[in-house]
């Protein structure tokens, strides 16, 4: 019933031992064949019987990406009742990422949130009783994905995309106004002009794609936020974890004005740590922004590290922080264990049922215990990473590829000597694809743009 084929990562996007990528749809087996070279000589998955397991390599052209195990399930005997292929690969995010992208470049679309389950239902795989929960999953995942795509995009990236969209719709509206009111607006040698502009735009897109590869578009890993009063030792903790001087550490309260982000690997688990400005009421505007951001980060975090200066009694500001982080996954850290503590672990635990540890960020004491605790919490399933963050990222990238492809169509049309009316719709497709990255809806943008820019009509 669905014409297209979708793929998504089925396992959590952390550097665990194994990662599973699932492909579903009519073209799933052929698509897998396009990127996988089986060890069995001259055999493709299409030739193999259903419900068999195969060994082979994912290939990007001539180079090997990963050594994989492939599970083949032909329709209707699969979860979605469609042709399904599962690729078990090595669990590094980089590898999973590359395989997924290879698939996306080979005619597969990144799955929408909850789409596998949706297909399973629509194809009659799941019974009626489960229908409502399917809707809840889709809604929850959609809400998250939407939030994630907006939240996670760094301001500068969404700015770049807005900018590209602006350029595209401005070209399209010029073309359309000339088509609609040819006695008023004419296009002369426009193809050549557009070609030059698109060349620049394509370069920009390429740059953005490369940035994405380096993980600049989205930060992956367990979103960990460090919070605490000014000068409680948050930055020192980040430095201890990261093993280098990263945040500016002074004894003056309020030094860390902006959030500082860091990817930290702990025994194969990636933490994406954000050090926030000290949370306290402030009139300083720069610092105020930092505080607001911190509140935002807390809401989207997987794990909160709450740093308390154990050498002083709890401050009224601590009460505010506690209220703020209530309900999140929290590890309370009694810092400055090197000084004489006035707050004890028992006292802290009494307060909330948080895991509480004593550390000295400055001297690196207790850091190992912290690492172990995080690892245990994660492996024990207490902290779960939202895969949607990663999937959102993959989808965003896929949309970027889509936009690029549309612009390449335009370039080809200009080369072929086609008139503008043939490619303005491709310009608009690129515009729409970019819009999906930042969660913009299309509506009547083009018509509105035409009317706002061009004086049309009788």
């Amino acid at each position: 019933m669905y014409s297209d084929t979708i793929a998504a990562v089925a396992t959590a996007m952390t550097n665990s031992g194994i990662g599973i990528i699932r492909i579903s749809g009519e073209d799933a087996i052929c698509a897998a064949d396009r990127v996988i070279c089986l060890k069995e000589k001259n055999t493709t998955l299409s030739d193999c019987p259903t419900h068999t397991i195969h060994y082979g390599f994912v290939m990007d052209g001539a180079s090997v990406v990963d050594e994989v195990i492939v599970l083949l399930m032909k329709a209707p005997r699969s979860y979605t009742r469609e042709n399904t292929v599962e690729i078990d690969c090595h669990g590094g995010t980089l590898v999973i990422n590359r395989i997924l992208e290879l698939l996306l470049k080979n005619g597969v679309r990144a799955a929408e949130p909850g789409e596998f389950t949706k297909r399973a239902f629509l194809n009659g795989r799941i019974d009626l009783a489960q229908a409502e929960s399917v809707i809840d999953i889709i809604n929850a995942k959609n809400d998250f994905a939407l939030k994630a795509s907006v939240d996670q995009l760094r301001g500068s990236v969404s700015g770049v995309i807005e900018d590209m969209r602006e350029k595209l719709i401005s070209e399209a509206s010029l073309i359309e106004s000339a088509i609609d009111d040819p006695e008023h607006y004419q296009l002369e040698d426009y193809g050549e002009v557009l070609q030059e502009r698109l060349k620049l735009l394509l370069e920009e897109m390429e740059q953005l794609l490369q940035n994405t590869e380096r993980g600049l578009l989205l930060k992956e890993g367990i979103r960990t936020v460090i919070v605490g009063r000014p000068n409680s030792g948050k930055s020192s903790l980040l430095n201890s974890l990261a093993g280098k001087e990263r945040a500016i550490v002074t004894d003056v309260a309020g030094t860390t004005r902006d959030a500082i982000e860091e990817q930290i690997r702990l025994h194969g688990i990636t933490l994406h740590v954000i050090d926030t400005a000290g949370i306290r009421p402030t009139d300083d505007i720069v610092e105020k922004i930092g505080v607001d951001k911190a509140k935002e980060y807390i809401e989207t975090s997987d794990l909160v590290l709450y740093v308390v200066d154990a050498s002083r009694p709890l401050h009224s500001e601590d009460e505010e922080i506690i209220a703020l982080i209530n309900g999140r996954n929290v590890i309370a850290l009694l810092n400055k264990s090197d000084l004489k503590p006035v707050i004890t672990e028992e006292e802290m635990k009494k307060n909330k049922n948080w895991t509480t540890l004593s550390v000295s960020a400055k001297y690196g004491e207790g850091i190992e215990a912290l690492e172990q605790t995080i690892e245990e919490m994660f492996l024990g399933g207490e902290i779960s990473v939202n895969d949607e963050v990663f999937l959102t990222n993959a989808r965003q990238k896929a949309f970027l590829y889509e936009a690029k492809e549309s612009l390449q169509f335009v370039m080809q049309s200009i080369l072929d000597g086609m008139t503008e009316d043939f490619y303005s719709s491709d310009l608009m497709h690129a515009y729409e694809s970019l819009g999906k990255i930042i969660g913009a809806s299309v509506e009547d943008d083009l018509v509105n743009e035409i009317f706002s820019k061009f004086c049309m009509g009788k």
Partner: protein
Amino acid sequence: MPGIVEMYDVCVVGAGHAGCEAALAAARLGFETILFTISIDSIAFMPCNPNIGGTSKGHLVREIDALGGEMGKNIDKTFIQSKMLNKSKGPAVHSLRAQADKAAYSMEMRKTLQEQKRLTIRQAEVSGILTEKKENGYRIVGVQTVSGAVYHCKAAILCTGTYLKARCLTGEMVSHTGPNGLQAANYLTDSLKEHGVEIYRFKTGTPARIDGNSIDYTKMTEHFGDDVIVPFSFTTNPDDVQIDQVSCWLTYTNEKTHTIIRENLKRSPLFSGMIEGTGPRYCPSIEDKVVKFADKEKHQVFIEPEGIHTNEMYISGMSSSLPEDVQHAMYRTVPGLEHAKIVRNAYAIEYDCINPNQLYPSLEFKTISGLFSGGQLNGSSGYEEAACQGLIAGVNACMHIKGKEPLVLDRSEAYIGVLIDDLVTKENTEPYRMMTSRAEYRLILRQDNADLRLSEKGYQVGLLSKERYEWVLQKKAMIEEERKRVSSVMLGANQKVQDLLKSYQSIPLHTGTSLEELIRRPELNYDLLAPVDADRPPLPKEVREQVNILIKYEGYINRQMKQVAEFERLEKKKLPEELNYSEIHGLRIEAVQKLNRVRPVSIGQASRISGVSPADISVLLIYLEQRKNLKR
């Protein structure tokens, strides 16, 4: 109160471009029809611009014609200049536009109506609709005129144009009339409101008409019609329309014009707040243009004849609601109009129309069974937009009486489909004008293939003759056969081929190639390659044209067909009429409100409602599946 009581199958209210098509369609489909007009002398009257067609509107006229409507035939009989616009661009955006002799256009249409069997024309103002209560609304049983006469009917079509509670404004001068001083219709709105119909107030305007004898054309650029004229109607013989044409003239406004306008803005009802209605962005008044595009030094002004037997010239580009004295001074600043004498003032007109979201895609009111609505009453603007809605409403009134499925064209079938879908689905806050950019599948919705796209539908509903339909089938077959033949023709790099290529500055061949490849070269086409295509059969021009387009743009057309296939998938998923969206678990509140208001007929239509997200569509799909399972 005693009065006339008569019985008809179909009542049509209004004899403008929508009403004429609606009435003709109903009568032609075999139903006794009565057409009401406020003024018998104003049938198919063109109160604004003196032309038919233009970009995307030309497409509409072609589609009307392919379905068996009248507009194309009528303009072919009465045009005085014709032009194919966008000829330098791709075939999808070629658009025909003809200057009409307004009086002749009106008279020809009146003749056609008068000669139509089963059609009665009656001058009277309809003051209300007569209904019966039924479950979830009403059923139409007739209409009533101001005099108290009652006309019973099985279906009625409202095509009231800009006449409902109309008000014309020229500066401080306000007259409670319809266009051109014609009587307004002041009662029908209230009757509709009593039936729960939501009313909008829109505004539009028209420029002054100037005495042609007072114009100095030497200061303007002359614009001629095409050398070879293409008729609108597929049934018109091209030889019959090669007439002597009149010219249009181009001139410009200037700083002086703009200064006068700016200095008098406070006297413009548009800016003084006297006008409540929303105007179209497409046809801004000159004062709107000067304010909104302040940095533009000049605006184009086209001087167009209103007909052969009148001295009046239409001043296109300068519609206005400024006071008479300001108009007088303003027009006289334009080169060539220094001594212009105004025959009729420019004015703005405000009128009542309905929120078209209250209609099904068949143009029937969702809550008033048997009542249809077409044209400017539905919030559109333009003669062509009106005519095509009138035609569809007319046909569907008949389908309603017959108890048959309505004629609904989708967005991939016709511009008419795009127009009606936009009206009934989207939020419409200004008079809606057709534009090529609104048609997402425009590469296949060309004006040249309207007959191939729509004749079957026209024949099925009964408007198109068997003879005409069979010709279209024959044409289709010829196109297909010739394409097949061409696809197997290979050309060697021989002298004859090289010479031909050279004569069109086309790169010579190194090795043999297919004829199709050469046709695709921008500088060549199917006809030009005839000398090297030895086995080519003699074919009519319209067939050759199609073969050329289909080969030349095959890649683009195929890509579009794929998009259409994807579109149709969702369009085919019908939503049950009685669905209560408030009860569907998982829909967002905004989506519930919008869905309950629009009541889309398909998942596809639902997906085009603003405020309905892809996630909501997923929920609807799952809900539909759930229902299906329950029924099993």
